[in-house]
């Protein structure tokens, strides 16, 4: 763990670069392995749906509002293949976020990152089920973050623009940083190589509001 030198092992052919690339690949695979553990499918049991991320081990799941849509029935498929019926806990169309609950406990969760501290040029990975391909990954960099991105309506709400190949079915799934921390919820694309995610700080605010209502109802 003493900087880059410790991972560069020049072999007899001087192929240090290959070792570096191999290590890079292994590390990316490690990050993705970790993300898969809390990645779910959200569907109505018939048509293809979207993705979601386990937020809390008690069965709280975050996805996009447009993944939930007006489906009368919602199933969540856990990483171990178990299919559970889900209830909508809260839904905010203007944030395109939804919180679902399934009856479960001890589910693997993902650590939230700090989306406000993301810098342009940083690496990120989006995971989901594009075109029904389960757990597919796309990698790229952060283009920018904030409420002023040129392609979006200037509502002042924060978005995370990312330079990777997001596709339908990635929706609702996790966008993670290089440490495997959740930094956003994959939401939409404006071009073949430009995607947008709702930053995790917006997700937190949404959940705080949603759970407050739940607590109020319970009392």
């Amino acid at each position, binding site marked *: 763990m003493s900087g880059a030198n410790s991972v560069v092992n020049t072999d007899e052919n001087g192929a240090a670069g290959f070792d570096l690339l191999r*290590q890079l690949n292994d590390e990316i695979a490690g990050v993705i392995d970790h993300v898969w553990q809390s990645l779910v499918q959200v569907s109505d049991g018939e048509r293809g749906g979207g993705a979601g991320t386990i937020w809390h081990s008690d069965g709280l799941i975050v996805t996009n509002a447009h993944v939930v849509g007006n489906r009368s029935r919602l199933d969540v498929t856990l990483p171990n293949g178990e299919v559970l019926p889900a209830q909508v806990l809260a839904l905010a169309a203007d944030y395109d976020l939804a919180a679902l609950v399934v009856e479960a406990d001890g589910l693997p969760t993902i650590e939230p990152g700090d989306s406000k501290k993301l810098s*342009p*040029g940083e690496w990120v990975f989006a995971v989901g089920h594009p075109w029904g391909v389960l757990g597919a990954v796309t990698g790229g960099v952060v283009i*920018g973050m904030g409420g002023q991105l*040129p392609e979006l309506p200037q509502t002042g709400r924060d978005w995370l623009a990312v330079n990777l190949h997001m596709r339908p079915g990635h929706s609702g799934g996790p966008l993670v940083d290089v440490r*495997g921390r959740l930094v956003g919820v994959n939401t939409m694309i404006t071009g073949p190589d430009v995607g947008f995610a709702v930053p995790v700080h917006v997700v937190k605010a949404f959940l705080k509001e949603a759970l407050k209502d739940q607590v109020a109802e319970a009392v």
Partner: protein
Amino acid sequence: MAEVLTSLSDAMAELVETASKSIVRIEARRRLPATGIVWSADGVILTAHHIIESDEEIQIGLPDGSTAAAVLVGRDPSTDVAVLRAQGTVSLTAPTWAELDTVKVGHLVLALGRPGDQVQATLGVISALSSQWQGPQRGGGRGRGGRRGGGRGRGFPFGGGDGGERDNVIYRREGGGQQDTFVQTDVVMYPGFSGGPLVGAGGQILGMNTSALMRGISLTIPTPTIRRVIETLLTHGKVRRGYLGVTAQPVKLPDNLAQELDQEVGLMVIAVEPDSPAHKGGMVLGDVLVTLGDEAVENVDELLSLLRGDQVGKALKARIVRGGQVQEVEVTVGERS
């Protein structure tokens, strides 16, 4: 712990942050602002010609969030380079520029832009490089690559094939400017990225990105071209280009002449503009231009590259074939307005 991955990611974010100190926003068109790069700390700013719709009331947005007025010094549509000068006292940081000699196809590069307050970034790789490239020209470049075609043929996305087909895919009619190297990348040109830099792994700026010279292709105007154009624009306010006043097309020379001249193809003059340098020099319809200033001309691209700005005002010997006879006339290169 993802050591290499985090180091790579951190290094890229740091590289963006460092370069961002020299990246400004340019407000010179009605829709989205675009990007500019500080050329020198005394106020010279580089941007893309095509993003300047109005040369009045140009504003630049600085890295510290402030704005300043700027005036247009000059622009060169052929290379899509424009030069602005910031007005008043502004604090600018010039970046480090690099030549392309250490850059290889496959290298990671970042494109940066500042269409808003913050700098934005996209990632890609160098897709193609070649040693010499002349931008496509509307109506020109009908001939095959010929002897100079090597640079254009290799790595050219349209195969360096027949010029007519190429013309269909060319968007900017002003093209045709000479570039020192052809640099194509696969970076996404996010809205407002034109005029922004291509940044290499060392953090140096390799050139200026433009999406306007070729549709659907991210091209980078390399540092040597930028330097040459900026110096000319700062001196003359425009890039001078030579002018003859002929329309011409390649024709095969008869065998005996080909042997005599050691050249198989010449350019047949199919129109001469009245009072043009060619007209004044005595060139007429039907003449076949073989050499200009002792340089062989076998296609329109070669003729254009002989008509560089520094040739303006020079009297050049033109060897022509007229009525089956080789003759010489003298033309004084004019300046294209």
